[in-house]
């Protein structure tokens, strides 16, 4: 190592403070963690920045860890909270934070127009813009007359080895399994999952992956979310979207939800962001860009999505679903071979 090398390396190290200066925080910042897809959530944050002048510094989840990646980061950071707001892709993750006393209740004035079933009265969480769990079928592999209508079709021997769902340890599939345990009882849920395994359902890394496998024809149909199904339709894929079990126990509806975090360092900006997220304007944005179903009356529902009011939805208590998710983790890991 000669002097020139040392100078080059030391110069690079000395440049650090210059770069870090760009990362310094200002009082007009708010830190938001979100498990809503970045492609949908970032434009919402940008619109908020334009409207409020408050800069949103965001942390996004990857498809593979959704929605537990940022959730677990919030838990790991509990000793010194970094985030002010958590915008969750579902309503059950907030309960993990509520149990750990990491949530600061906040009843937003914007929440008044939202149905009581999708929010907590004490303001610990508030739901809006929803997805549903759907079956996505490849029309080249499944005849119109054979398109499945129930999630129980995943266990039908005629579809053995031809179906897919995401790993139930992660993402909205966790919530779906928890909801089935709450609605059917633990034994029936476990029996259903065992039958799935026996029937050779392909366990993919994410719902997006299920969509990819169905679109590519790797499987005939799979269980995924409406936003993933909508992306397949937008790409022109030859697929059918089925809201399952409409004559039976219904389809699972999953509102996104927002919580304010205890110890938020930028509380005022955090409240402003929560208010904005719960506005009708954001439900409209999420409907247009991400095919999320508006929960607030009066916000138009996109043409390729069924309105919540027309849907036979599973009757679930989200707190109970959250309890079931925690209770089933050990069994689910064994079921998945982990």
């Amino acid at each position, binding site marked *: *190592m*000669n002097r*020139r*090398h040392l100078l*080059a390396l*030391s110069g*690079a*190290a000395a440049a*650090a403070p210059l*770069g*870090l200066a760009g*990362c*310094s925080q200002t009082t007009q910042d708010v830190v938001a963690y979100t498990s809503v*897809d*970045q*492609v949908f959530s970032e434009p919402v944050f940008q619109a908020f920045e334009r409207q409020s002048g408050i*800069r949103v*510094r*965001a942390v*996004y*989840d*990857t*498809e593979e*860890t959704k929605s*537990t*990646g940022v*959730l*677990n*980061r919030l*838990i*790991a*950071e509990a*000793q*010194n909270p*970094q*985030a002010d707001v958590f915008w969750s892709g579902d309503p059950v993750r907030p309960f*993990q934070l509520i149990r750990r006393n990491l949530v600061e209740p906040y009843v937003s004035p914007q929440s008044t127009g939202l149905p009581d079933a999708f929010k907590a009265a004490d303001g610990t969480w508030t739901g809006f813009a929803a997805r549903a769990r759907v079956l996505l079928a490849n029309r080249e592999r499944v005849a119109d007359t054979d398109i499945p209508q129930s999630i129980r079709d995943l266990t039908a021997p005629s579809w053995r080895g031809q179906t897919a769902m995401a*790993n139930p*340890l*992660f993402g909205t599939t*966790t919530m779906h399994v928890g909801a089935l345990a709450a609605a059917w009882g633990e034994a029936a849920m476990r029996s259903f999952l065992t039958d799935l395994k026996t029937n050779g359902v392909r*366990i993919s*890394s*994410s719902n*997006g*992956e299920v969509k*990819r496998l169905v*679109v*590519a*024809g*790797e499987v005939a149909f799979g269980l995924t979310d409406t*936003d*993933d199904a909508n*992306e397949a339709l937008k*790409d022109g894929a030859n697929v059918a979207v089925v809201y399952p079990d409409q004559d039976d126990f219904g389809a699972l509806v999953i509102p996104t939800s927002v919580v304010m975090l205890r110890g938020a360092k930028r509380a005022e900006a955090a409240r402003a962001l929560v208010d904005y997220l719960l506005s009708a304007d954001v439900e409209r944005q999420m409907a247009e860009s*991400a095919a999320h179903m508006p929960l607030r009356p009066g916000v138009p529902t996109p043409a390729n999505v069924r309105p919540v009011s027309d849907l036979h939805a599973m009757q679930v208590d989200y707190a109970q679903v959250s309890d079931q998710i*925690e209770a089933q983790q050990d069994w689910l*890991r064994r079921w*998945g071979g*982990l």
Partner: protein
Amino acid sequence: MTAAGGRWQGPSVVAGAAAVILITVVPPLIATFGQVIGAEDVLAPFATAQLWLLLARSLALAAAVTALSLVVGVPLGILFARAHLPLQRLLFAAHLSILFLPPFLPTLGWFHVFGRDGYLGGPLSAAILFSDVGLVLALTNALLPAVTALTAIGARGIDASLEEAARVAGGPWRAAAFVVVPTAAPAIALAGVIVFALAFSELGVPMFLRVDVYPELVFSRLGGMDFAPGEAAALALPLVVLAAALLWIEQRLAGGRAIAALGGGGLGVRAPLFAFRPWMLGVGLVAASISLAPIAALLVHGAERGGLLEAARWIGAAPVNSLLASSLAATFMVMAGAILGVSLARQGIVGVWLDRIAVLAFVLPAAILGVGIAYAWNRPATNWLYASVLVLVVAYVARYSALATRTVAAAVAQTPRSLDDAARTVGAGYFDRLRLQLGMAPQALIGAFALALVFSLRDLETAVLLYPPGGEPLTARIFTLEANGPAGVVSALAALHMLITFMAVGLAWFALRPRASA
């Protein structure tokens, strides 16, 4: 410098370099394994045969990837380093390009080629892709250039007179087999360790191809609903044994090598060992094409669906974040690595022990290290670090410092110790001797910096757990946009990532390249 000052020069500098490693690597390891204490039933999973079978399966898969990479990569590295063929540098750069991406992206490219509805796909190719064989081939494809590159660096550091004598006596093939490869053994062994560790700890590709591996077991305790870092740390305990085993194997293969091989200069300084033959160009073209094929598939797939032009809208500050954190980390790694690498090559106790710690951090699943860094550094007193891009610098140094140190060590190990002893005898100070030893291995610093930079830039699994709010690096942005983002955007950002990496490595080479006056 007084005599007393000179006496402390070496220990002071080594202590400074050691501090870089100790501060970045040790706190997260303590925080991680500290979680085991007090956690309940953390050892219960070890009582199940399922766990050991999964571990054995992961070891076997990583061994297969390593073996295949070495069998193909060593001859390829010698070809690129010691043969003369047209477009040599271009083909070599194309071959290396796939190493610049997280392995998941090229695997996604292969899916577009060999998936059931892929460009060349069908049920059979899809079945192979989504299998153990597919996993081994995809990871070999992604990691092979690490072997090629390190073999090439090792082959270029050989004493020209030794190689020439062997060539005259036995011809180029015998010279390659009995002089070049044995002399480059430290670099080749390092490549084997790197490939094995990366193949073993890879998570994204096995999850995508639906192959169960041990790191998924660990990740399920950190990425699932029941956040259980104590259990995850306990499950990582066998990896401590694995790290020790890797070090032992490497030592057996390459350690204490006595061949004195004075570095004779870099690329283009001496005559090629092999004269040009047309088949060599064919091999070079195949090596380059296999690396470029999945990337091209990604780009074509993206272009077909539109969205390439949308990339500018989504890129944000991610390239700046990536470059800032990675170049800083690579700088720290190479500064510490230059000093500790020489110590390691000479079997100095500080170099040897710090290397063992750094190798453990490299072998551990990224999620374990990431959570350890969060526990260690997310405190009010260190918030200035944790909430800034510096946390990525710490993460990269913690995870990849072994690469820089070992690249320097592998190069210095090829140089004769007698010269250092001679310099010490005539009273040369620490810096003079350091300069002498690094000067005899001119590719070492470039190689170390390039490896540290490339691996920091391509890192996803550590960065995604820790990046500061609003400061995501490009790999994290590619992956967070991959969920329902326009396919063209993901492809365009992947291509941009490669371009940035090429430019950064090129700039590093320009700044650190050996010159005649040096």
